[in-house]
């Protein structure tokens, strides 16, 4: 019998931007089994949502994920608007789509950079993150924030995109195309990236259907699904664009899908701002007085795939039940298929290939005694603990040069 070695990645590891523990069981260099521990980020958001008003829930769900911070409010707005039955204004539709697509571009650029970093190719990392910065500047100009834009509300958006800001968006999209050209050329033609990503971490079509994987992970394996086209919302049915797919199912195919999707996003944004110019400024919100009793199902295509929100309203001003399914919830589970049989060195990029977002997957901090089930700390004690720890850090000089 061969001896198996356990290699832990995480919960805190330089390769991961968020905490999650992967246990790789290896036979020599080859990964033979994988197990993981999740829950480090579980914040009980679904339960918390039941204690917030509909207006507040937008700010809550926006904090599920820092990268795709608009996709959750997007799906929640779709769900609540389905309950109320309102038809949002055209200008709102276009603004929502612009925000959604800008987010896709910055999220995909972030992924390309991280993927380069995981491969040890830090030039790609530096480039991609440099190109991402002007997109965040655009967000700051439009919404006032680089991330967590607080743009959505029931029946509209909180801020208009004034026509005076449109030339800056157009100019940046034109520049961005050139930058993606450069980046795509560098990634697609590079023999080192080919060697590290082709045939690595393959997910077959059947694996995708079995795990219910979504987004670029599914599309790179030839599963042609995209909520923007299949279950149209906002301005997506009103503009021309196409769903990008690839067949190979490996890491390279996932990179290809994401890179090409950025062109489509840029094109959607350009078409949206063209129409926006012709529509009346300021017509971006409907007055919604109450949310009737009912059930709403909202979907939105986040950069990582379909976000699903299920809202049960009992007629009060907060949801009776709010179920959230982020795309990484199904995508991360595919590791069981993509990593086994790979070498340890390839396992990391296979893990990264689905663009895992752990914050999204777990949505708590409570301290309970394992044997008695009693609370060890109450909220005030947790705050006192936090303040004590902060003052200790200050005394020790942490955070100062």
């Amino acid at each position: 019998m061969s001896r198996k070695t356990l290699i832990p990645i995480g919960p805190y590891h330089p390769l991961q931007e968020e905490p999650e523990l992967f246990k790789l069981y290896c036979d020599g260099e080859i990964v033979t089994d994988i197990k993981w521990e999740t829950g480090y980020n579980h914040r009980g958001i679904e339960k918390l949502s039941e204690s917030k008003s509909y207006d507040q829930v937008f700010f809550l769900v926006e904090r599920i994920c820092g990268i795709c911070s608009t996709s959750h409010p997007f799906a929640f707005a779709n769900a609540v608007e389905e309950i109320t039955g309102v038809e949002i204004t055209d200008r709102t539709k276009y603004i929502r789509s612009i925000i959604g697509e800008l987010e896709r571009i910055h999220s995909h650029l972030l992924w390309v950079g991280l993927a380069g970093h995981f491969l040890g190719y830090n030039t790609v990392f530096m480039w991609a993150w440099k190109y991402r910065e002007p997109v965040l500047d655009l967000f700051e100009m439009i919404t006032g924030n680089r991330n967590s834009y607080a743009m959505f509300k029931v029946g509209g958006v909180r801020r208009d995109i004034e026509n005076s800001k449109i030339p800056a968006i157009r100019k940046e999209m034109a520049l961005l195309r050139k930058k993606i050209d450069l980046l795509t050329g560098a990634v697609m033609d590079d023999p080192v990236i080919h060697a590290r990503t082709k045939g690595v971490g393959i997910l077959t079509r059947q694996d995708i259907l079995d795990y219910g994987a979504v987004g670029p992970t599914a599309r790179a394996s030839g599963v042609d699904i995209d909520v923007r086209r299949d279950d149209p919302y906002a301005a997506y049915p009103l503009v021309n664009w196409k769903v990008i797919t690839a067949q190979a199912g490996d890491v390279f195919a996932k990179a290809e899908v994401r890179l090409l999707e950025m062109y489509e996003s840029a094109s959607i944004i350009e078409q949206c701002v063209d129409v926006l110019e012709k529509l009346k400024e300021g017509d971006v919100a409907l007055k919604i007085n109450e949310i009737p009793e009912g059930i709403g199902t909202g979907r939105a295509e986040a950069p990582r795939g379909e976000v699903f929100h299920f809202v049960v309203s009992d007629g009060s001003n907060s949801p009776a039940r709010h179920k959230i399914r982020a795309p990484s919830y199904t995508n991360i589970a595919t590791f069981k298929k993509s990593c086994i049989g790979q070498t340890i060195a390839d396992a990391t990029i296979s893990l990264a290939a689905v663009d895992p977002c752990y914050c999204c997957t777990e949505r708590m901090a409570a301290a309970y005694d394992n044997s008695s089930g009693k609370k060890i700390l109450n909220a005030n004690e947790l705050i006192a603990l936090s303040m004590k720890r902060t003052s200790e850090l200050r005394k020790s000089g942490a955070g100062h040069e």
Partner: protein
Amino acid sequence: MDTEAAINKLTGKFSSDTVKVVLQKARRSIVTIRPSTILAIAEYLYKSEGYRFIIASALHTRRGFEIYYHFSFDADGSVLSLHVILDKEKPHIESLSNMFSASNWIEREMHELFGIDFLNHPNQEKLLSEGNWADDVYPYRKEFK
């Protein structure tokens, strides 16, 4: 296939005491089914009709425990939710995870947060709070403070 045709096909295949349509509108439908028929209906949707399992939402209400199993038909973008009402005292239902892996995590999560038992689940361990949460304390139940 539009939503109406899909619902007619489903109600034609299973008897009316098994399947009750509670909501039907463009691209959205909810049908209440008897819990004992979940395997047969899920198998029909997933294997014969090509539906994709999205997620399941559990609720704790006055009626007991309820689960909505959400399925997506991507060819026309519709979402079909199978609704079951489970026992108040000992909620349990057959697991779908032997049919598709997509339901594996969510069933473990529902078991952990609501205390619903999934029969024949391949691995009904805790998903989120392994080792740091008491057994038999279910934070998403209504009585939890």
